[in-house]
Structures are given as structure tokens and as C-alpha cells.
């Protein structure tokens, strides 16, 4: 019995060294659920730090503002905790997608927005006007307060033929005659 215990114990010990999982696999899963906006609205410096905090139990799973209730729900499911809506009063779905727009006639070319853009999607150079790579903008809004001349606006993405979706079928229920 003792011998068996030693053998099995050493096997387990060996396995724990050999098949050691690097890092916390939960962090990866949490991060995959997040929208990668990198906006910092959760109070962390990006999606990865927030994912680490959520996985470690230091942050609530309902702090992701751009992800909205969808992400909060998925995270709650993943962590096995009760779902709480995002924010105190809004508690609605994700925000409508917005992207930054630089008014090029007002832009003074100070590069302040380029420095704060977490995903490097503002291009331009010092004293030359800047512009946003529209399809890479995550809508994090970090560039809006950075602009000294207030030339950045967040514009909602309009529905067009390219991004239009079929709607969920809804039927009118009529009263039987």
C-alpha cells in the first residue's frame, strides 16, 4: 500500500511538472469573450489586464461597457456567477457601434490622438492633419478627450447595404374574427 502510494505520488508529481499549464487558461477564455476595444472604461489599462482581473476574481464581469450585457452574460456564464447588467442604470445592450471621425479642417496636427490610440489606427504626422482608419477603429473614445482643439467626434456607424442584416422575423398577431 505504501509502495503503491509512493509510485502513484511520484507519477502525479512528475505529471504536474511535465504537463504544467503556463498561466491561467481562464484568462485566455475571458479575453476571447471581450470585444478588444482597449478603451479602459472598465478601469483597467486594456482588455488583457481586465481579463486577468476578472479571472483572478478582482473585478466584476459586468464592467465592459462596449461589450454590454451580451459580454457580461457570457462572462457570467463562463465564471459560473450570477449575471448582473452592465452599469447601474443603463443595463441595456451594447452601445451602438461608433467610430472616431477627425474634422480635418480643424485638426492642427498635434499628434496627441495618435499617441493615445490603443490600436494605432490614427495616421498622420506632426503639423500634418490626421485621419482615422475607419474599419480598424474600435470606438474606444480615448482620442476624444486627448484632442486639444476638439476636432474628433464619435459618429455612429450607419446601416448600409454592406452591413445590413436580416431581422428576426416578427409577426403581427391578429385577433380571430
Amino acid at each position, binding site marked *: 500500500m505504501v509502495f503503491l502510494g509512493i509510485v502513484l505520488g511520484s507519477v502525479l508529481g512528475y505529471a504536474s511538472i511535465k504537463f504544467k499549464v503556463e498561466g491561467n487558461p481562464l484568462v485566455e477564455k475571458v479575453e476571447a469573450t471581450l470585444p478588444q476595444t*482597449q478603451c479602459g472604461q472598465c478601469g483597467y489599462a486594456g482588455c488583457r489586464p481586465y481579463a486577468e482581473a476578472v479571472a483572478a476574481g478582482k473585478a466584476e464581469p459586468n464592467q465592459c461597457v462596449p461589450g454590454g450585457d451580451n459580454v457580461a452574460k457570457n462572462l457570467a456564464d463562463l465564471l459560473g456567477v450570477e449575471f448582473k447588467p452592465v452599469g447601474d442604470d443603463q443595463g441595456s445592450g451594447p452601445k451602438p457601434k461608433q467610430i472616431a471621425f477627425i474634422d480635418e479642417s480643424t485638426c492642427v496636427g498635434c499628434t496627441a490622438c495618435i499617441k493615445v490610440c490603443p490600436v494605432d489606427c490614427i495616421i498622420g504626422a506632426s503639423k500634418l492633419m490626421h485621419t482615422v482608419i475607419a474599419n480598424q477603429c474600435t470606438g474606444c473614445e480615448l482620442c476624444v478627450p486627448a484632442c486639444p482643439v476638439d476636432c474628433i467626434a464619435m459618429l455612429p456607424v450607419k*446601416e448600409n447595404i454592406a452591413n*445590413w442584416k436580416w431581422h428576426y422575423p416578427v409577426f403581427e398577431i391578429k385577433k380571430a374574427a
Partner: protein
Amino acid sequence: MRTLYKFHGGVHPPEHKEESNRLPIAPAPLPKRLTVPLRQHIGSPAIPVVKVGEQVLKGQMIGAADGFISAAVHAPTSGTVSAIEPHAVPHPSGLPDLCITIEADGEERWIERAPLDYRNADPDAVRLRLRDAGVVGLGGAVFPSYVKLNPGAPARIKTLVLNGAECEPWITSDDRLMRERAAEVVEGIKIMAHLMHPEQVLIGIEDNKPEAAAAMQAACQGTGYEVVVVPTLYPSGGEKQLIKLLTGKEVPAGQRPVNIGVTCSNTGTAYTVHRAVNHGEPVISRIVTVTGNVPKPRNFETLIGTPIAEIVQLAGGARPDTVHYIMGGPMMGFGLNNLNAPLTKAVNCVIAASPALFPPAPPPMPCIRCGRCAQACPCELQPQELFWFSHSQNFDKARAYNLFDCIECGACSYVCPSHIPLVSYYRFAKSEIATRDMEKKLAEQAKERFELKQQRIEREKQEKAARFAEKAAAAAAAKAAAAASGVEDPEAAAKKAAIQAAVERAKAKKAEAAAKAEGTGTPADEIPQGDSDPLRAKARAESYAPQGDSDPLRAKARAESYAPSTENNTDS
């Protein structure tokens, strides 16, 4: 006689072909104004290459293909470009899209049309011609033909299937085209075969079009192409279904026919290929069936860009009890919400619908899981399960049940005893999944960019720190070396002496000036500063203060710190 295979399921709705297939194709008159959408094909929309106010000729390219999957669009007639702006288009969303509006001048002046000798031309040149002539699949998917007709090296095409099945009820445009212009369709098939080198060419036609089959048979004499008459069963004109019928081969889930060495094209496309290559005419018109609740249903050869309202007028106008219009067939088409929308390459049929012809669907009832949809499904899917998952928005499950193999033919909705519009749910689920996939991809890209930026910032920080450390080390080393040797570097010493001298001189000058000012009664602070005083300027130049160091001590320190580097320079 070729053995015909069978595909699973299928339905047989009333055909309603008789209404419109009796009369020959009539040319539609030239409208006053034509609106040509830039997005008439799958892929990226064309880029406008004309400006407002520009004169264009009939057949002139007004939108150039953009990117790999795209096709050009052309002016359907000669006239003036009056607008390039969003306009109503035939699309289920009812949203406007970018269009080029042309005011016709009525002269119909053509561009120079040059035929291309495809037999002696580079196949890529032929494909380019097709792209720039705006040739796209006219069967409904409007996929650019030049992409499809590129077999590629590894995937050799064994069978070229021409789709003349036209299985949707009411539509007869391909039927009339094959009856009247079989020889030209076959010329187009020859070009396609020349590009693809298939071992066999099969032309599938449903048995409710015997005249078309006979005409094609006659035109195919001596070419080796085989006309195969297939039984009338919806959706035999579905690409994968027709391939199964003719070759017995099944396209695997999630793959395309090219993966099993087959390519399928519409006969109408073959006709436009012929016009583009042998006549140099781009796709500026198509044959459209106008039928349903109209007095004179018929096929019209209509210019792309003609308002659909005018096309309906050609058939005598819709009767007063018409409630809506369907673009395409009743099984797969969609309701048009704006008759100002123009005819596009995708519109093969316009049906005026009245409650008598198309009674409104009874309200949907709960699914009773009878399984009739599964029996009717030509893709051998489980429509009731797909409905369940789409309805509950369980998208992962829907995908796992091969939702994306659904061709949206509507056979399941047609047989459903509970009148559930099943296809609406599948379309919803498909577009929702596609959007989420897209968002996921964008999120991954954002993450990558974010991480790259973090790495870059980190790297820059380290490089900066390294540079500072190096500089500090070099300065310290030089100082140590100087201290160790006990004697100052002669050059630095000379410089130092010069600076010292300059400082002394400057001081003397200042004192002198102050004394002078006192003498003349000028306040000291009014003494002209700067280089206006030649002596001062000289002193400054000597004192090695090009940066404008006014503090002599600082200048001295600077000179010292620069000394080692000058020494290095002389050494090297």
C-alpha cells in the same frame, strides 16, 4: 442516354411558365433616365470613373472593378451623367446604394466595339475582358464570371455544367433566351470551355422547356456538348442540385463545386460572355420576365438601369388589385419596396402579386416536428432543428447543424403545415453569425494592433534607456580617463583657455559699456543687446556658445562634456 441521378427532396409548386413564355423577347424602349448601381455583383462595388456632367457613350465603362472579386459597370446608353449619389436599389433591405444616373440623349452612340479572338489570345486577356465587360453570373448570385472561369493550376475542371434548368415558377427569361438565341449561347459556352478545358460539357434543362432543349440540341450539333433534360422538380436549378442530377457527384458541405472538379454557370451568362468577347459589348442589358398580375406578361430585353416601374408598364401595367411586387421568383425572391429602383444584372423577373395569385400566408403556428421539411430539403439538412436553433438564437448549434449549407430555396417553408417562414429564420441566423464572425475577426485584429503598440512602446523605452546609459558611461569613462592621466587633453585645454579668455573679454566689455552708460547717462538696460555690437558678436563667436548660452559657466561645462567626442573624432 445519360443516367440521371436524383437529389434529395424537392417540391413541385405550380409552374406558371405558360403566361410569359409564349411571346418572343421584345426589346424595351429607351427610358429617359437610367440609374446604374455600382454594386450589382458579389464582392466590392465598382469605383465610379466618370464625373457628374460628363458625356458618356453607350457601353462606356462608368464604374471600374475594384479588387479581386468585382466587376465593371457600363453606361447602358449614350447621354450625360447627371448624378452620382445614393438611390433606391432592388435589395431586401430597401436601403439606398450608390448609383450613377445618366440622362439619355436618345442617340444610342456606341463606344468602339472590338471582338477578341479568344482562341489565339492569352486566357488571362479573355478573363480581363470579361471583368471589364462586367460579366457576372446571371443565375441570381451575380458572382463575377472571370473569377469563376479561372480554373487555377491544382483544381482542374472535369465537367462544365450549364444551368438552363430555370426551376423557379413564373420565370421564363432563360427559356426564351435558349429558344431564340441558342447559337449565341453555344458560342459563349465555347469560350467558357476554351478557358476551362473541361472533359465534358453538360447543359441541364428541365423537361417543362422542350422547345428550349430542342433549340439547344440543334445548336450543339458537332460541338460534343450534351443537352440533358432533367425532370421538373424545384430546386433542380440550384447549383449543387443540378451537379448532383447530372454527374451524381455531391459537393461536400462547406465546399464549392470547383473542389470536385465541376463548374456551373447559367446559360444567360454564357450569352453575355459571347457578346462581350465576340462582339465587344459589355453587359448593359438583360432579359427580364414581367409576369403575374399584368395583362400582357412577356420577356423584355431591357437596359440595366431602367426603373422597374417602367418595366411593369411595358407589360401593360399592373392590374389595380396588385398589392406588391416580387423581384425574382416566388420561392427565393423578395418584395420590392420601391418601384423607382432600377433593373440590375441580378433581376431576372418582376412579378406583380395580387391576393388572388399569391394569397397572404396564414399566421404561423408552432412547429409540430412533423419532419416534412426534412423530407423536402434538397440539401439533406434538418430544417426543423435549424429553425429551433435560429429561433432561440442558439447560433453555435445552428452552425453545427450546417446552417451555411442551406441554399434558402424555400422548399421547407413551402411544405410546412404550420406555415412557418423557415427561410426568414435561416437568413436572420446566417447574417447574425456572419456579423459576429466579422466582429470577432476585427476584435482579433484590434488585439494584435494593441499588443504591437505595447511592444513598440516598451521597445522604444528600452532603447532610450540604453542610449542614455551608453552616453553616461562614455562621459564617465572620459572623465575618469582624464583624471587618471593627470594632464588635460591639450585640445580641450586650449578650448577651455579660449573660452575663459572670451568670458574675460565679455566681462571687460560689459564693465566698459556700463561705465560708458554711466558717463552718457543712458540706463544700463538700454544698451543694445545682441550681435549689433561687432565686438560682442566676436566675443560670442569665440566663446563657443552657438546655442546662445548666456551663462559662461554652463557654456564651459558644455564644452567640457563635448571634449571627449571631439577627441574620438580625431582618433578615427
